[in-house]
C-alpha cells in the first residue's frame, strides 16, 4: 500500500488491542446514511514511474519560452544551493516551530531572515513573512488603521501606480472590516503619483497612503517628497517595494524626514521560482513602536535555563491561537519554506551580489527599451528614471503583437489594456540579469517582423 507500512499481521494485532472486529467497525459512529462507498470519480493510483512520465509530458507541453514578463513576478538566477538546502527534509517536512527546543534551526533562520529584511528595508522589525505581496498590502492597510494613533479613519489611498492585483486583493481582503480604499491618479507624462492629487486630501482624515517604489510601471517615484507630504497630512505611509531594488535604492525607513511607517512587498525575486504564481512570500517590516500591531509570526532571541542563547516565537498574544476573535489577523502559517529560500539567496548574493543583480537588471531593461524604441511605432511611454521595467506605447493593439511574438517562442510582456485603458496600446516589459544581448536582439527582430506584418495586413 503506497505510503502505508502496515502488514496484515500489524492490522490483526492492532485491532485486537483496540477490541474491534475490523477497520470498518472503527467508523461505526458515523450515521450509516452518510457513508460513501468508494470514490468512483478518482482515477486508479499510479506508481512513481508512471506519475513521473505523466508529469514530464505535462511539463513539456508548457515549454520554456523566452520571457520578458514582469508585473510583480521576476525571473532571476537562483543559486543551486538555495533549493538544495531548502528542500532538506529537516526544513521541508518540519512544522511551525511551536516546540522551540526542537526547532532551533527554523527559529534561528527566521531571526536571520528578520535581520536581513529589516536592514534591506531600513526599518527595525520584521515578521516571519505573509502569504504574498498582494496579501501583505492588505495586511499593511489593516495594520495602519489599527496602529494610527491620531486617527480612527478607515480610509486608505491606493494610487493607480500600485500593482492593480495588489489593489484588488487589498479591497477583497480588508473591505469586510470596513476599510475604504480610494484611488489617486498618476501623471500621464511621467507615470508617477500626482502630488496635487495627494494634496487635495488636505483637511481630510485618511489613515494611510500606499506608495509603490519602483511603481507598477517600473518608474521611480519621488518618495521623499511624497512621504513628507503624506505625513504632513496626518497619513501613515505604507511602502511597497521590490527587494532586489533595495540593494541600490534608498530604503523605505529613510524616505523623507521620518521614513515610511510600514514596508511590505513580494519576496519572490529573492530565490523563489516563478512557478505559475506561487508559492511566494510577502514580507513586512515596521518601526518598533508598531510591533504589537503587526500581524504574523515573530521570532525573538532569548536565553534558556542555563543562560545559553536560543530563539522562540514571541509576542504571540497578537495571534489567533491565543486571541481568537480579537487577533491582529486570522493568519496562522507564514510562508516558511520560501522565507528559508530567500534567506539562503540573500546570504549567497550578499550586499555585492544583490547590487549586481539589481544593476544588471536595470541595465538590461534600459538596453531593451532602447533596442525596441528604434522600431517604427514603438516608443517609451514615460520619461524619467526606471528600475527594471518600463511601459512601451505601440501603434497597434498589444494583444495581436503578443500573439505574433508568442508564435516565435517569445513572451513579449504584459498587455496593460485591461487594467489601464487610458494608456492606449501599452506594453509593460521587463528584462533582468538573466537576459543576454542575443535575447534582446532576438526580441527586437521578432517585434520588428510582427509590427511589419500587422501593418501590411
Amino acid at each position, binding site marked *: 500500500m503506497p505510503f502505508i507500512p502496515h502488514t496484515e499481521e500489524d492490522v490483526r494485532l*492492532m485491532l485486537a488491542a483496540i477490541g*474491534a472486529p475490523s*477497520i470498518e467497525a472503527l467508523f461505526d*459512529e458515523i450515521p450509516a446514511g452518510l457513508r460513501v462507498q*468508494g*470514490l468512483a470519480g478518482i482515477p*486508479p493510483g*499510479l506508481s512513481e514511474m508512471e506519475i513521473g512520465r505523466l*508529469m514530464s509530458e505535462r511539463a*513539456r507541453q*508548457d*515549454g520554456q519560452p523566452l520571457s520578458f*514578463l514582469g508585473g510583480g*513576478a521576476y525571473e532571476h538566477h537562483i*543559486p543551486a*544551493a538555495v533549493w538544495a538546502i531548502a528542500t*532538506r527534509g*529537516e*526544513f*521541508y*517536512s518540519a*512544522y511551525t516551530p511551536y516546540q522551540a*527546543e*526542537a*526547532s532551533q534551526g*527554523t527559529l*534561528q*533562520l527566521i531571526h536571520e531572515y528578520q*535581520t536581513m529584511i529589516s536592514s534591506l528595508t531600513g526599518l527595525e522589525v520584521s515578521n*516571519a513573512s505573509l*502569504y*504574498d505581496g*498582494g*496579501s501583505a498590502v492588505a495586511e499593511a492597510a489593516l495594520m495602519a488603521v489599527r496602529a494610527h494613533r491620531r486617527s480612527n479613519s478607515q480610509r486608505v489611498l491606493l494610487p493607480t501606480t500600485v500593482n492593480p*492585483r495588489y489593489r484588488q486583493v487589498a479591497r477583497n481582503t480588508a473591505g469586510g472590516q470596513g476599510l475604504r480604499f480610494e484611488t489617486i491618479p498618476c501623471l500621464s507624462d511621467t507615470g508617477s503619483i500626482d502630488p496635487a492629487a495627494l494634496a487635495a486630501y488636505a483637511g481630510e482624515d485618511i489613515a494611510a497612503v500606499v506608495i509603490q517604489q519602483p511603481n507598477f510601471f517600473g518608474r521611480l517615484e519621488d518618495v521623499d517628497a511624497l512621504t513628507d507630504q503624506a505625513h504632513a497630512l496626518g497619513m501613515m505611509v505604507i511602502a511597497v517595494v521590490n527587494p532586489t531594488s533595495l540593494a541600490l535604492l534608498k530604503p523605505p525607513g*529613510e524616505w523623507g524626514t521620518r521614513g515610511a511607517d510600514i514596508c511590505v512587498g513580494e519576496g519572490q525575486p529573492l530565490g523563489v*521560482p516563478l512557478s505559475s*504564481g*506561487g*508559492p511566494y512570500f510577502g514580507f513586512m517590516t515596521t518601526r518598533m513602536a508598531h510591533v504589537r500591531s503587526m500581524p504574523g509570526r*515573530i521570532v525573538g532571541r*532569548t536565553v534558556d535555563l542555563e543562560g*545559553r542563547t*536560543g530563539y522562540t516565537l514571541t509576542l504571540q*498574544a497578537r495571534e*489567533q491561537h491565543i486571541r*481568537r476573535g480579537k487577533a491582529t489577523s*486570522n493568519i496562522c*502559517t507564514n*510562508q*516558511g*519554506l520560501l522565507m528559508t529560500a530567500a534567506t539562503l539567496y*540573500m*546570504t*549567497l548574493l550578499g*550586499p555585492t551580489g*544583490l547590487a*549586481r543583480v539589481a*544593476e544588471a537588471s536595470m541595465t538590461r531593461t534600459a538596453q531593451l527599451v532602447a533596442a525596441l524604441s528604434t522600431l517604427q511605432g514603438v516608443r517609451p511611454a514615460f520619461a524619467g528614471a526606471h528600475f527594471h521595467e518600463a511601459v512601451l506605447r505601440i501603434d497597434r493593439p498589444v494583444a495581436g503583437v503578443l500573439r505574433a511574438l*508568442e508564435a516565435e517562442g517569445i513572451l513579449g510582456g504584459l498587455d496593460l489594456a485591461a487594467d489601464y485603458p487610458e494608456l492606449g496600446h501599452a506594453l509593460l516589459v521587463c528584462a533582468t540579469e538573466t537576459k543576454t544581448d542575443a535575447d534582446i536582439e532576438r526580441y527586437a527582430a521578432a517585434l520588428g517582423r510582427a509590427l511589419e506584418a500587422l501593418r501590411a495586413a
Partner: protein
Amino acid sequence: MNQTLEKPIFEYSRPGRGAAAQHPPAPSADAIGRAAIPDALRRREAPLLPEVSELDAVRHFTRLSQLNFSIDTNFYPLGSCTMKYNPKACNQYAMLPQFLGRHPLAPATVGQGFLSCMSELQDMLKEVTGMAAVSLSPMAGAHGEFAGVAMIRAYHRARGDLARDEIIVPAAAHGTNPATATMCGCSVKEIPVDAEGDVDLDALTKAVGPKTAGIMLTNPSTLGVFERKIEAVARIVHGAGGLLYYDGANLNAILGKVRPGDMGFDAIHMNLHKTFSTPHGGGGPGAGAVGVSARLEPFLPVPLVGSDEQGHRWLDETDRPQSIGRLSAFMGNAGVLLRAYIYMRMLGRDGMARVGEFATLNANYLQARLRDAGYELAYPTRRASHEFILTLRREAKEFDVTAMDIAKRLLDFGIHAPTTYFPMLVPECLLIEPTETESRETLDGFVEAMVAILAEARSDPARLKAAPYTMPVRRLDDVRAAKHLELTWKPVQ
C-alpha cells in the same frame, strides 16, 4: 541529538568575501545601471547581508537544519496538523524546470500542461468532498476560511438578507475560526459541546436566528471525535436561514468514508498540506482550496480553471461577476497545488480511502494502548477519529506535572510533542495524531516513551519539570523574549 548551537550567519561574515559564482559580472564603465538613479533616491549604506563563501552558507544552513525535528527524522504526532510523510516524488515532479520557470502572467497557451493538472485537481477535490465546485486559490487553511465566510456573507447580501452578521462556533473551535469571522466583519457566538463531545443542540437552537450568517464546524471535531448530530445541526442552521462552513483540518480522518457535501456543508476549506501531504515547510506554505455547494458557486474566489474545446484557461472576474474576487496576486500557491495533484494521482481512489482507514486505525490503537498504560482519555466512551485527547488533570493534581512537562520530556525520547493546551476546554490536554504513514513499531515506541514518562512523573516529577535535557537548548525564557525584544541580530559592540 545534543547538537551544538550554531553561531549567527552574520558572525561568519568578512568584508570582501562572497559566493562569487552567484554574482553577475561587475558592470562595465558604460553600463546604464546605477547612474540612471537620481542621487536623492540612492541607497547610502549597504544592507546588512552576510559576506560569506558558498561553503560557509551551505555549512551554516545545513547545520541549522540539523537542529530541527521533522517528519523525515522524527515521529511527529502533532494533533490537528496531520504530519504525515511527504513523498519525495511530489517534490521532484513539481519542480520540473518548465513548471518552475512558468511566469504567472504567461498566456494559457503556454501552460496547458500545468493547467490540466489544476483542472483535474479541482475535479478530484470535488469528488472526495462531495462539493459542487472548487477554487484552488486560497493560500492556507485560514485563507480558505476567510474565503468561505466571505462567500457566505456575499450570498446573504446578494439575496438582500443584510442582517446576517453572526457566526456561530463551538467552544472548542480552532482559533482561526473566530479570527476569520472578525476579519469578515462578523461577530462570534460560541456554543458549548456536551459531555460526549457532540454539539449541544439546545444551545444551538437558541443561538440561531435572523442574524445567523452561518456556523463553522470541524468534523471530526477538534475533540477527536465524529460529530454524530451533524444532520440535526445542518437542519437547525439551514432552518434558520444560515449556512454551514466546514473547517477541513480533520479531513484526513474521513477521506473516502464520508464527505462534507453529503453532511450538508455549504462551504469548506481543505488543508492540502495536511490531507494531501504537501510539505509544512517549517510553517508554510500551505494551500487552502475551498469547495462549495451549488448555491455558493457564483461567489468562489478567482482565479478558477475553466475548460472548453480550446483547452484550459484561468477564469477571472469577467467570467465570474459575483465572485468575492482575487485573494492572491496571482494563482495562490500553485507549486503546492501541483504537489497535492501528484499525491492524489499516486494514491488513486483506493489509496485515498485507505488514508482514512489507517489514520483511524493508528489513532484508535494508540488510544487503546495509552489508556491501558494508565493515561486518562478525555472521551473514553468514544471512538477516536484520526486523533484523540489525553487529559493530564490527575497527574497535574497528584504530581504537579503539566501537559507541557510531558510534551517537553517526549523531545528527549526523539519524539515531537503532541499538540498541547488545545482544545482549551479540556484541562491539561495532549492532542495526539499519529497519521497513517507511521508503523506499529513507531507507535509502540511512543507508548513506551509515554510509559517511562508516567513512571517518572510518579518517581521524580522535578525531572519532568526541567525537561528537555538533550535538545540544542534547554527550556527557553519566553517571558524575557517578549519583554526584552531582540528581533534582529546586532553586532557586538
